[in-house]
């Protein structure tokens, strides 16, 4: 069972590095539109994330819905043009 590639990553914008303004965690992000966001974390980024550490259950494998500081950093990267957001 080989998992294939998501063509959207080749046909639209690709995943681009973004660093969190709060804790410096490095992730890859992509925005197919202003409202859509993909975030690929690494183990190192997850370990570095301050919000995740502080979240209830964040350390023992409980559900962590997402990091607000990272979300803001990704939005800023999109506004700065570091993340290209395709025109609607």
């Amino acid at each position: 069972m080989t998992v294939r590639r998501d063509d959207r990553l080749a046909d639209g914008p690709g995943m681009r590095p973004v660093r969190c303004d709060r804790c410096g965690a490095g992730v890859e992000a992509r925005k197919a539109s202003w409202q859509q966001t993909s975030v690929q974390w690494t183990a190192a980024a997850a370990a570095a994330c301050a919000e995740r550490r502080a979240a209830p259950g964040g350390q023992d494998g409980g559900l962590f819905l997402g990091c607000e500081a990272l979300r803001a950093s990704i939005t800023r990267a999109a506004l700065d043009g570091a993340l290209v957001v395709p025109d609607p």
Partner: protein
Amino acid sequence: MTAVDAERGGVRAIGAEAAPTRFARGWHCLGLSERFRDGRPHAVDAFGQRLVVFESGDGRLNVLDAYCRHMGGNLAEGTVKGDEIACPFHDWRWGGDGRCKRIPYARRVPLRARTASWTTLDQDGLLLVWNDPEGNPPPPEVAIPRIEGATRDDWTDWVWGETVVHANCREVIDNVVDMAHFFYVHYSFPTYFKNIFEGHVATQVMKGVRRPDVRPPKAGEGGRVMTGNSSVASYHGPSFMIDDLTYHYDTMDVECVLINCHYPIDANSFVLQSGIIVRRGEGMEGTAADETATKLAAFIAMGFEQDVRIWKSKTRIDNPLLCEEDGPVYQLRRWYEQFYVDVADVRPEMVERFEFELDTSRTTEAWQAEVEANIARRAAAGRPA
């Protein structure tokens, strides 16, 4: 790109390898544990084999390969005797640990008298078995979380249902990321959708509103009008999903826990199960919660039928062609693959955290227009919305 993906004359080819013959490593729920506590052995077809489930005299639920290692008798047709299952053919006695404990007509048990046994977990009224092609015990970090309401008096008992589906179980997993099918197949209206995959857990966060073209805004029992729902559903491993589901009404919220789980029969069929409990409380006094649980269970069973209708006639597809308003199918399958390889072959990208938040602005606009068109058409035909 593989040969099967090759496009000729711009025609997109559907690629599909055969469904894996290996079965996923992980906890699999076999159903309500009380069902197996009637003093009799039960046959269960799972993981390409026939299993026998029996409650031993000590109250434990045990799962063994059903076929006796002596002459192949079917233990599921046998009898529970004390802590052992006795084969109907020659009365050989097998313990829950898979060892032959006694042969009443023999002086001693032969060497190698051991059959396959599965680690079981009887938790929150559910019987789970640990399947691992490598034969390792379940690691503690993949334990199925406790479901608090399942053992509390202020929640209902489980209302359980199951159905056999003749498809590979990847089809039901794909639903985790498939927002649009909830509108077209299940007649719901998602307005928020996010997926999170991390470790052995895959989560779907969804919010939705009632569809006035499907469920007219008439007051139901108790004078309530449903407005929408919020759901946080996580697969804990390859087959067991716990969904914290709240139905919103104009006057109150109804809290539920929905289990959506399955176990493979073989590569091309699986048993799909659902269970629901509903919280009692204000607006849910007396038997109201029980009635709601029964109604919701019927609603979920209808949802399964809607999925099954699609699965029965669709083809397996390894290279779905996606638009940007589809969810992360490929990343979900990358997560799912971890359960089909040896532990040593689990790669970081299968377990590293991935988040995908869907843009619902376009979907909401399109679906709102479709809902309004449906209502207008019915009004024109002289029927009430």
